[in-house]
């Protein structure tokens, strides 16, 4: 039986018929219905239109009195067959165009006489009152575009949409969360930037005036574009939540649609934004897009990454079409862009979208929440045990002992230099020229980038981040020690005691006291590096793939080396330690070779990760100083054995670690004894390396860092001791091993008391003040020109990175007392030699005019601290050679500062960029003093030169005035001179020509990091896939070599 088909008509015929339907002809409706404005529901059917019948059925059930339904069939299927049974009165118009926008636009020509058009997808189900509410609200609010509240068809209590807002970059953002319950929380009528075209009521005249939807924005941005253009035309876009429309939850968009949607959103942005605003919108939007693309690339979502990049390239290709659309949109503009701008919200919707959609943050959050509850439950039950209480107690003591650092601030003693702003850090990192000290053409240390990143994560508070790093070092290191102890000594008490012992060794506390940031970071990284090394060496097994372990171990070494370059040798020291006791442990030579290879891999990976910074150390100059070797060696071997080279850990307590180590070595048996010997080898090598400088009479690296291997080894031995006691000693009869165990326990208790004692001050004996604060006024002295500060004194007093000549340490800081940018200076060159020579002249009493010697280095202040920080303490010794030598200098003016420092201002100072007459080419010496004549302006016709107080390089270029020739020459033997000075433009900066070289290096650095990260992640995924779905992934260690009997029995 043939269905009663609805009429299918060509456009003109259908228009006339629709016109008659809408009032041109006789009407049968009652008076009330005649008062209602006519609405044509334009249902655009394209694709398979699975829910067309439900949609038509709902429209048929609408209580709106003057509703006509027009089905635009933008599909090859004959829809009349499907429409007729549901809504016989509906008009069906087949069209040849494809897509929603083009189909909907057909209504402009087809429909006449209706003041409102209701555009519908085929998958919406309007409630009976929805259309009436929309029309009423259109009149009430004088709105041109009105959207309903979209809810899920199957679960009407779930919200799908209540209008959209966008950010400045055209990225849509909805206030509702995924699967948010409708509790009438969004039921207020309000303005929105755009509404979905799933079901939208539009004033027909406006739709016609705007030219309908832009087919070039279909899919993905047609509604956004239409509403945006309506906004430009001063039309109001609102959402009327009382109008409820069900919406079927379709599958997510196809990837090709997603790519198109990205492109079309960019098109909408470029079409509707004013030209002036585009100047800054485009660059920022591109940065955000490409950053997101990079993230997707890292997550191996190449399609989405390509879609983001293609969004820009696609629009670039269609520039002609874009220009035409833009001309039309801007021609209709009656509202200035600043008013549109005010409707857009600040910030980036992309970030929130990324969190909610790309990362599935909601799901993750739920997952994390569940995991967190699980972990918390587990931790809660574990921490109720004695082991948990021990760890909690230690962490609590760390917090108590660090309260001054947390509540007050971290002093800038030693290497705890303050961090400048993010932009300054990044500018320094991306600069090909290093402006530290006297400058050098040298790669910047990655520490600058790391600090910038951490500062961003710390919401811009450098002090907070520094404090957290320092305070968090001990707990994180203790966690690492627990992890490292687990495969060696076993889980439970052994790993807890190892963590406890590693946490209470005096090494990190003294590192904090003296500002030894590098050794502190090595202390944190050492357990993880050790674990990676022994795993790669085959001494223990680990669940993770070897490649990932190698990468993470390399990251650990690189992380420590970022702060302290010598940390790169940590794997080698660990392996050599195990090698020296190999005759006792009887480790196979093949295994030793593997260990050596593993150490080389870890150090090598770290070098690769730090590339190109390691290249800086190949340059000439003070390589030793650049590596941080310049401290006075520790004469007392007893101090090294006690792991105490500072104010913390006084008394007998620290001896306990040694006692415990010796006792456990005798007490243990089997594989545990072998591990004890290996760890003793590491400790011995660490001590010997730390003691060698004193034995040979040379300068030493920071001893705190040298003691880290020994500290780790002794802590792990303590863990082994507990395992031995639990598994062996406790079960045997009372004997000498019980005595040793008791002695060990008492020793650890004694060490813990020492640890508790050190918490009293709240700062781990770190001074509360610092020279940086005392001399902060210097930063306000730049108005007379850029300058440097020369620090001279003993190695323990000069803050930051310093060089050493004889017994005197010296450092140069720029524009004040220095910050992180002055840390880790490049080894130097002729400039360093000049600075060292000047300090030697001073220390050897070979000059009484040091000001003239260092004047060309722009040294305006010479600071001689007698202690690491200001405050109470012993005054300077009267025969301090540097202080006495400075007092003899005739061109220094003494300034008054707090006790503990002698500060002079150099009256022979030359600003960093100055006009100097008769610049000598050779380096000034104290024996042949010269008179440098400076003038504020260049005098034409003279031999004046512009001296640029950066180390000489052919690549420095001075801007010339009116293209006059400028000759560069070496000034003072190391600096740059440009003559004639009159030809140098004063208004422009002297520039370094090779800056371009930095970018490929940075890209290479980035590529290395990305490559290694991907390699580690890829292997991990493959491994996970190969393991199957039910294998747990949280457990880090699968097969400890030594399994405690307690665990194995259980």
């Amino acid at each position: 039986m043939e269905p009663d088909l609805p009429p299918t008509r060509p456009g003109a015929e259908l228009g006339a018929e629709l016109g008659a339907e809408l009032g041109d002809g006789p009407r049968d409706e009652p008076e009330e219905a005649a008062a209602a404005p006519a609405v044509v529901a334009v249902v655009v059917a394209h694709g398979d239109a699975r829910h067309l019948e439900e949609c038509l059925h709902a429209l048929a059930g609408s209580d709106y009195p003057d509703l006509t339904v027009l089905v635009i069939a933008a599909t090859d299927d004959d829809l009349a067959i499907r429409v007729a049974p549901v809504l016989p009165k509906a008009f069906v118009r087949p069209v040849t165009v494809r897509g929603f926008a083009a189909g909907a636009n057909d209504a402009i020509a087809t429909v006449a006489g209706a003041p409102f058009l209701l555009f519908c997808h085929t998958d919406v189900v309007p409630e009976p009152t929805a259309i009436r509410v929309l029309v009423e609200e259109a009149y009430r609010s004088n709105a041109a575009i009105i959207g309903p509240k979209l809810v899920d068809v199957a679960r009407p209590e779930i919200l799908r949409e209540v209008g959209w807002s966008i950010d400045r970059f055209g990225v849509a953002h909805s206030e509702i969360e995924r699967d948010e319950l409708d509790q009438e929380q969004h039921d207020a009528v309000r303005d929105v930037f755009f509404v979905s075209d799933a079901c939208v009521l539009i004033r027909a005249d406006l739709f016609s005036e705007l030219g309908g939807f832009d087919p070039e924005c279909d899919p993905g941005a047609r509604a956004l574009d239409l509403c945006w253009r309506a906004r430009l035309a001063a039309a109001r876009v609102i959402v009327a939540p009382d109008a409820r429309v069900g919406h079927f939850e379709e599958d997510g968009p196809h990837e090709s649609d997603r790519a198109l949607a990205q492109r079309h959103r960019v098109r909408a942005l470029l079409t509707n934004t004013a030209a002036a605003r585009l100047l800054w919108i485009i660059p920022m939007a591109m940065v955000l897009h490409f950053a997101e693309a990079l993230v997707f690339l890292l997550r191996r979502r190449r399609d989405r990454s390509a879609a983001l990049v293609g969004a820009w390239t696609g629009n670039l290709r269609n520039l002609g079409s874009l220009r035409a659309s833009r001309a039309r949109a801007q021609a209709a503009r009656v509202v200035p862009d600043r008013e549109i701008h005010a409707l857009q919200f600040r910030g980036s919707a992309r970030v929130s979208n990324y969190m909610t959609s790309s990362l599935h943050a909601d799901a993750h959050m739920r997952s994390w929440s569940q995991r967190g509850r699980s972990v918390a439950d587990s931790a809660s039950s574990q921490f109720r045990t004695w082991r948990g209480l021990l760890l909690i107690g230690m962490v609590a003591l760390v917090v108590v002992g660090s309260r001054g650092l947390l509540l007050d601030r971290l002093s800038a003693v030693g290497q705890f230099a303050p961090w400048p702003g993010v932009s300054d850090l990044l500018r320094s990192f991306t600069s090909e020229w290093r402006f530290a000290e006297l400058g050098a053409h040298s790669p910047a240390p990655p520490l600058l980038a790391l600090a910038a990143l951490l500062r961003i994560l710390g919401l811009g508070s450098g002090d907070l981040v520094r404090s957290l790093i320092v305070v968090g070092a001990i707990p994180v290191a203790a966690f690492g020690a627990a992890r490292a102890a687990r495969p060696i000594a076993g889980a439970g008490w052994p790993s807890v005691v190892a963590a406890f012992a590693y946490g209470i060794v005096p090494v990190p506390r003294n590192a904090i006291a003296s500002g030894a940031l590098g050794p502190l970071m090595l202390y944190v990284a050492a357990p993880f590096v050790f674990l990676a090394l022994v795993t790669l060496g085959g001494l223990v097994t680990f669940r993770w793939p070897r490649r990932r372990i190698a990468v993470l171990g390399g990251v650990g070494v690189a992380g420590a080396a970022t702060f302290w370059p010598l940390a790169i040798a940590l794997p080698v020291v660990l392996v050599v330690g195990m090698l020296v006791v190999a005759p006792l442990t009887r480790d196979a030579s093949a295994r030793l070779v593997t260990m050596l290879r593993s150490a080389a891999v870890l150090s090598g990976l770290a070098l690769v990760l730090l590339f190109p910074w390691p290249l800086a150390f190949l340059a000439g100059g003070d390589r030793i100083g650049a590596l941080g070797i310049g401290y006075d060696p520790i004469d007392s071997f007893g101090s090294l054995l006690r792991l105490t080279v500072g104010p913390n850990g006084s008394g007998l307590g620290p001896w306990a670690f040694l006692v415990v180590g010796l006792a456990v070595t005798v007490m243990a048996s089997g594989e545990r004894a072998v591990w004890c010997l290996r760890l003793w080898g590491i400790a011995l090598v660490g001590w010997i390396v730390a003691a060698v400088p004193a034995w040979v009479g040379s300068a030493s690296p920071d001893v705190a860092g040298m003691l880290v291997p020994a500290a780790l080894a002794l802590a792990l031995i303590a863990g082994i001791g507990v395992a031995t006691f639990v598994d062996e000693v406790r079960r045997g009869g009372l004997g000498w091993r019980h005595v040793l165990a008791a002695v060990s326990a008492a020793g650890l208790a004694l060490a813990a008391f020492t640890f508790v004692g050190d918490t009293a001050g709240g700062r781990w004996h770190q001074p509360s003040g610092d020279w940086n604060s005392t001399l902060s006024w210097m930063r306000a002295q730049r108005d007379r020109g850029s300058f440097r500060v020369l620090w001279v004194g003993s190695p323990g007093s000069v803050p930051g990175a310093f060089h050493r000549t004889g017994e005197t340490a010296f450092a140069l800081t720029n524009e004040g007392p220095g910050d992180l940018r002055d840390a880790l200076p490049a080894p130097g060159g002729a400039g360093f030699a000049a600075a060292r020579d000047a300090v030697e002249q001073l220390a050897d009493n070979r000059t009484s005019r040091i000001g003239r010697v260092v004047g060309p280095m722009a040294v305006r202040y010479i600071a001689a601290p007698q202690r690491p920080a200001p405050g109470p303490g012993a005054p300077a010794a009267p025969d301090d050679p540097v202080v006495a030598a400075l007092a003899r200098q005739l061109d220094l003016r003494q300034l008054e500062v707090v006790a503990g420092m002698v500060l002079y201002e150099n009256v022979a100072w030359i600003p960093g960029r100055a006009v100097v007459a008769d610049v000598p080419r050779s380096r000034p010496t104290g024996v042949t003093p010269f008179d440098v004549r400076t003038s504020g302006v260049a005098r034409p016709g003279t031999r004046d030169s512009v001296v640029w107080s950066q180390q000489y390089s052919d690549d420095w270029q001075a801007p010339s005035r009116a293209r006059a020739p400028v000759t560069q020459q070496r000034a003072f033997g190391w600096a740059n001179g440009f003559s004639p000075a009159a030809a140098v433009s004063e208004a422009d900066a002297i520039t370094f020509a090779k800056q371009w070289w930095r970018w490929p290096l940075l890209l290479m650095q980035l590529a290395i990091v990305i490559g290694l990260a991907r390699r580690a992640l890829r292997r991990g995924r493959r491994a996970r896939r190969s393991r199957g779905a039910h294998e747990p992934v949280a457990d880090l260690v699968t097969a400890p070599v030594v399994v405690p009997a307690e665990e194995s029995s259980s």
Partner: protein
Amino acid sequence: MSRSGRVVFVALLIIAFVLVTIATGRDKSTPVAVATGPRIDGGGTLASWYCAEGTSSPDGRADEEIVMGNVGAAPSRATITVFGGSEVAPVRREYDIAPGRVVRVRVADIAVQAEPGVLVEVRGGATAVEHRIQRGSDVALGPCAREPADQANFASGTTLRGAEVWLALFNPFPDDAVVDAAVTTGEGLRAPGALQGIVVPRFTRVSVPLHDLVPRADLLAVSTSVRRGRVVAEQSVALDGTDGRGGLALSLGAATAREWRFPAGITGSGRTERLVLANSGSRDVRVTVGFVLDAAAAVEPVAVIIPGATALAVDLSRVPPDIGFATVVRARRPIAAEMIGASTPPQGADVRGLASDLGVTRGARRWAIVPARLTATSLDALALVSADGRRHRVQIVRQVRGRARVLARAVVPAVGRTTIDLARLVGSPDVAVEVRAHGPVAVERVSSRPGFTRSHAVVHAGTGR
């Protein structure tokens, strides 16, 4: 590894740890005795010397002459800068000093200033700078300072009738200085308001008339402390002949010390010596004064207790007359000590005068004697004592055409002193000589005719340790 093996391993570790800890725990550093006071540094030096006392105006209290002597093998070049105050442009002159030679320059020939401060900058060679002041027929010679001092002490003052004591404070640096001075007398501490907060502007010499501020004090020991900035302090004492005492003495301020040596001393036949000890601290100090005689005799040391903030003169009457002697002062706490010698009738008129010396606190191996002779007819001698209680051989060396020529050899006994007559070794007054010893010795020079003066020599610090 078996348990017994591990026990042996642990035992070896313990033994090794104990041995290494003991070995490295010993304090291997030994205190190095560094000579204090003016010194010539090693080669390649730009050395500055500061001469505070003296005047260069016709009506000045003491006409000043700069004496520069090069005891090194290389020539040196000196720049003399005379400052007349922060508002007056300094005047500079340059001079070349040949090896082994002495150059004398009257300050008045460079610039006439009422309050001249003289800065001498020497490049190259090994040149010591002293200055000689003259008032009438009285002369005084002493080394210029090599560095400013936070504290300076003088013990030789007296403000009895006919005496003038001038404290000269020289600030050759570009920052102003503020100095406090305290005066210790036999009656205790005096700190007149005028001596507090003395401002010494940059590039300025300031003279303080102590005789006006603290009159009629037989013993007057001055202690200056720098509150801010840097200064060089010198003191001159002039006696106008009242009560038969006349002469001019010059002292360079020194830090307090626990040990002082005065190698040159003699009493009798119109020669008197007065050893003044000043304790500017608040606690009593026990001091032992020992004597080393030229003759084969011994004198009991003198033990005195100096009350806090007090100066006292040590009774030297137990030292036999007409026998040369050296004096060694050892105190429990740092004090100032100064020996004041007077040459009065029956000594001849051309050798009468007053001489003071703050003594030697540390020994040295090399000393510069600049000039070797005060004048061509003067009587000049060196007195040497061992600074470490050991016997040392010494040489008197002069640079001649780039080579060191030994003029004399002598031995400084472990206990006792040695004197060397320079007039027999050197004829010209324009020669500089050097004392080279194999061990630390203390050297003092005595010159007379005209007048009478005494000072300790300048340390040549090239090997002065």
